[in-house]
């Protein structure tokens, strides 16, 4: 399956990644090659096979709904690129 340049741009935008124009053909070629490779899966009839999402099909366990962690705002926010009044700051979204 061949991926064309515009599709690379579209997928990249969906993933919020910018690919420079001069790199687009290279990505298109590599993605096409990977998709050709995975197309081997089509050779197998899986009509009656249920998808397997989790290798050991145990039911995920739930925790009881009690607070386990302390307030760690300061230590979490020490990793933040920009904070103000204990809030995470981003570029203005409303004029």
């Amino acid at each position, binding site marked *: 399956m061949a*991926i064309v340049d515009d*599709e*690379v741009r579209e*997928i*990249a935008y*969906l*993933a*919020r*990644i*910018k*690919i420079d124009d001069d790199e687009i053909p290279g*990505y298109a070629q*590599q*993605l096409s*090659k*990977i*998709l050709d*490779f*995975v*197309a*081997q*899966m*089509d050779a*197998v009839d*899986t009509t009656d*096979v*249920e*998808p*397997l*999402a*989790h*290798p*050991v099909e*145990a039911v*995920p*366990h*739930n*925790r009881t709904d009690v607070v*386990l962690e302390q307030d*760690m705002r300061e*230590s*979490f926010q*020490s*990793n*933040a*690129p*920009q904070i103000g009044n204990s809030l*995470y700051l*981003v*570029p*203005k*979204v409303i004029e």
Partner: protein
Amino acid sequence: MSSYPDTVAGIATALAKREFSSKEITSHYLAQIAAVDGQLNSYITVCNERALEDAKAADELRSRGEAGPMTGVPYAHKDIFCTKGIRTSCGSRMLDNFVAPYDATVSGRLNEAGMVLLGKTNMDEFAMGSSNESSYYGPVLNPWKTSAVPGGSSGGSAAAVAARIAPCATATDTGGSIRQPAALCGVSGLKPTYGKVSRYGMIAFASSLDQGGPIATTAEDLGLMTNVMASFDRKDSTSIDHTIVDHVGELSASIKGLRLGIPKQFFDSALDPDVATATRDAIAELEGLGAVATEIDIPSIGLAIPAYYVISSAECSSNLSRYDGVRFGYRCDDPIDLEDMYIRSRSEGLGNETKRRILIGTYALSSGYYDAYYAKAQRIRRLIRESFTSALADVDAIVGPTSPSVAFDLGEKTSDPVSMYLSDIYTTAVNLAGLPAVSVPAGFVKGLPVGLQLIGNDFEESKLLRIAHQYQSVTDWHKRKPPIG
């Protein structure tokens, strides 16, 4: 002391007998790292001060009579496990400035055992790679031949253990990332059953496949490390509440009469003929110990790599959407608006292989393609698991090569992603099936190590380690040391 033991078991025993202190053995490893790692680049961060503090605390515990079996033993920690107060980069520019505010469950368990953290090891960015060439911190070099790759993604952990600049290391395995670098560096590695080692605080790549485990020189050391690393953890919803066993308790039992299945699909045209010979010699060695080998058929195995790359890339694109430059990690300079900030932070903070996988995953999950790719791959995943479990109903372990070739040269596969993916041809199926597997050193081809892979049924790590230990009791491949180290 002029020469220290270089196994976990040897160090633990000597510490218990007070032949040397944790401070002495820790200082020895820190000095070795300083002397050797400039040639290998296996560590991203060396924790000199913290290691000496931990060693002092371990020695104090021992003097109070409160030491456990692993207290004071140094280890290296893959830089994918969060370590409170220590940078946890995951090999990425995106997390170059990230100081984990909490410990991964595995990190906490190693601390509680009194083990001494030497440093954080280098790895492919976000564990995506088979050669350790995608790290933001530069490639790790193979201590057997510095123009060759150490394998990946846990290349730093494998190279450090091979060069004896750590007695053991943690690692993670999503499609072969413990076993393949262990094989290529001539050390031992265990990928436990999915759900056995907590994923809490282990930075996610593909959540239904990721599994932590140890790398060390011997099977016995893998067992000792697994005793510490494995636990049921309510903070990981896929952690499995299994019976905790002592992974070194059965090592000395004979393997006479154990049934080994040799999948004919593992000896296909992809396999280097010399690696095939070394693997067959190793199987003959196991037969000499009384195991009974028979050829078996695992027909769906050829579809493992295509299914693996769809599932892992889809899960990666979802997991890595969290890196948006808002709360932690890399943020671009002077964003003009929110979208510009997302796009440039991700584009500048992530490397090429990571971007390629995010794009593949985004495509596979996008509207109209989900059934053709992700759902299809999950159906094939069931076929693969069923063919393994049906084979394992008749044999105790499945045996074959870990990697189709010995270590390849740096740059040899970087331009062709598919050829890189094929270096995991014998390992990815095991992750899809969720099974445990071990790789142990089993000879050399052109001076480079060959790995033998043993695959077992769910939670049968102890049986695999027993086979590996018995093999290591009649071979010395695991004792060979590389020129660097």
